[in-house]
């Protein structure tokens, strides 16, 4: 499949936005302004942008812990600054600063949030897929999961049930080679993790997760199947995270030269050269996109920095839906 020039340009912009967003988050995490642990998705932009691009707003999305990109692209443009403010822990954050980087949800676009317990969303996503089936809607569910997370028992329970009941669920398995320091080949027997779906009779494939056209094509096929009631699909997207597990992890477990070889396969660089060489778009135009994106993200940053902290009342609200919890006296 080849996608149109306009379409490719659009997802190129999406990827540039993720990259820039992550660069700014990285800078402010490293200088100590952003508290806590940050998991960056630099290098994995095509998998996130390509998948989100194929979904409609009412489809259910479960980003993972390395999911800033999918979260930002799922959101409405006017809300994007509040996503960054959330990562800064500010009151104006999309979840009031209570969740931070790992726990960003946005129900109006059906971003169902991440749960810090790996493998948890892989079963929660069964429920949203089930609701579509129960309510006779054509909304599909996409759950992002990592190569390491596949070790959790919940993944097996989820796939068994989704396959048996033919639920509209797409497992996006981001194989970025590592779970913290552990290479996927050292914790799984399969050469292709996609093979793991075979036991559940779930169609699956392993694709180049850095080629956004391939990502879009494969996701579209899976979504079509799901919307037609034919059940789940698993797509293993081969990619690489350029940073360590969390921002600040020196990633000493990676063999020399591995990062550099993956940088050669940078999804943004690949798309850029396609746009220039096949579609004849000038470098100047692409630079303009870059600069506009930088300005855009600078706006999110300034908003986040200028925003107030939450007030202590925000800690005790919404523990329950109906009753309140006591604060400090």
């Amino acid at each position: 499949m080849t996608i149109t020039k306009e379409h490719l340009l659009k997802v190129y912009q999406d990827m540039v936005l993720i990259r820039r967003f992550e660069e700014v988050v990285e800078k402010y995490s490293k200088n100590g302004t952003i508290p806590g642990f940050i998991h960056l998705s630099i290098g994995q932009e095509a998998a996130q942008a390509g998948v989100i691009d194929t979904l409609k707003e009412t489809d259910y999305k479960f980003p993972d812990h390395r999911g800033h990109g999918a979260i930002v692209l799922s959101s409405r443009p006017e809300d994007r600054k509040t996503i960054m403010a959330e990562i800064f822990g500010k009151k104006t954050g999309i979840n009031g600063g209570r969740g931070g980087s790992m726990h960003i949800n946005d129900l109006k676009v059906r971003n169902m949030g991440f749960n810090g317990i790996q493998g948890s969303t892989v079963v929660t996503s069964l429920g949203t897929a089930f609701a579509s089936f129960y309510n006779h809607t054509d909304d599909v569910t996409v759950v992002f999961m990592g190569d390491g997370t596949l070790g959790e028992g919940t993944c097996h329970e989820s796939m068994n049930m989704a396959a048996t009941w033919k639920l509209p669920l797409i497992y996006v398995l981001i194989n970025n080679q590592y779970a913290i320091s552990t290479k996927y080949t050292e914790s799984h027997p399969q050469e292709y993790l996609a093979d793991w779906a075979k036991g559940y009779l779930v169609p699956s494939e392993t694709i180049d997760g850095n080629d956004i056209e391939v990502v879009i094509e494969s996701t579209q096929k899976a979504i079509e199947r799901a919307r037609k009631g034919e059940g789940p699909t698993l797509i293993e997207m081969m990619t690489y995270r350029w940073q360590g597990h969390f921002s600040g992890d020196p990633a000493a477990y990676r063999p020399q030269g591995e990062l550099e070889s993956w940088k050669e396969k940078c999804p943004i660089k690949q798309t850029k050269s396609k746009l220039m060489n096949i579609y004849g778009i000038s470098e100047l135009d692409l630079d303009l996109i870059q600069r506009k994106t930088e300005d855009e993200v600078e706006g999110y940053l300034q908003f986040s920095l200028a925003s107030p902290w939450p007030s202590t009342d925000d800690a005790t609200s919404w523990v329950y839906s109906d009753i309140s919890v006591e604060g400090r006296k």
Partner: protein
Amino acid sequence: MNRTITFAKAINEAIHQEMDRDEKVFIIGEDVAKMGGDFGITSGIWKKWPHRAFDTALSESAIIGLSCGAALCGLRPVAELMFADFIGVCYDQIVNNAAKLCYMFEGKASAQIVVRAVTGGGIRCAYHHSQCIEPWLMNIPGLVVVAPATPYEAKGLLVSAIRSNNPVIFLEHKGLYNKKGDVPEELYDLPLYESKVVRKGNDITLVAAMSMVDFALRAAEDLSKEGVSCEIINPLTLFPLDKETIINSVAKTGRLVIIQEGPKFMGYAAEIGSMVYEDIFEYLKAPMKRVTSLDTPMPFSPGLEDYVMPQYADVKKACSEVMSF
């Protein structure tokens, strides 16, 4: 010979020395072998014993299940769960398997495993990386819950935990890893099921565990300037609890403040309080007080997390209320 080392190093040393002594001991968990653990606690072990250190997939149920099975064959697994919050994933193996094996096998075999887990708040990691899971485990007869506060205690108690034939949940508070203290280089053990009198005093008893012990020590210093003498008790083994040391202390001072990180309701402070009321009510000169976290999940934003966790000001306030009752 004593040297000053960190809490993290003390744990590392205990595992090294026990593995040296007993070849039935092995380590298992996510990233514990080649990388030496997410917090670096098991560094150097895989290098020395490549066949006794095992990295796994993200599979907590399998890690604990395997440990229980291996223990039934006489091995001594030291499993790491990384963040204690992840215990939910293998809760069944711990509660319905490990905790009951000794009883079910009438003592002929048991889950002689150690489950190391990093507990507590304070690092801005929100809901699923900050909880105090102690009470989740303290209603389960058969489990042992150990919670050291100093490097010296960490090394000696972990050695005893590894040698114990019971399933021991060994809690390492993340706020303590860089804490330094004197630790003998030689192998030694400290008794399980014994509370420690951290500081002797006559007027008020402060009970505190893990990072809360520092609050108690600070309060004791401050109160001593006002002429109040504090006795500080650290349970060390939270469950099964050494009641006697606490009861004896409160019988002497007549006053009790318990400082406990984690939600108030059904925390161990509640158990210690009711145990004192039940046994020595007539000795009390004032109602006891609890200083705890709020009954909420742990929020991310720094100001919110601080608000939810116990604060030193609350400790001071509780002590003066008890003293002036």
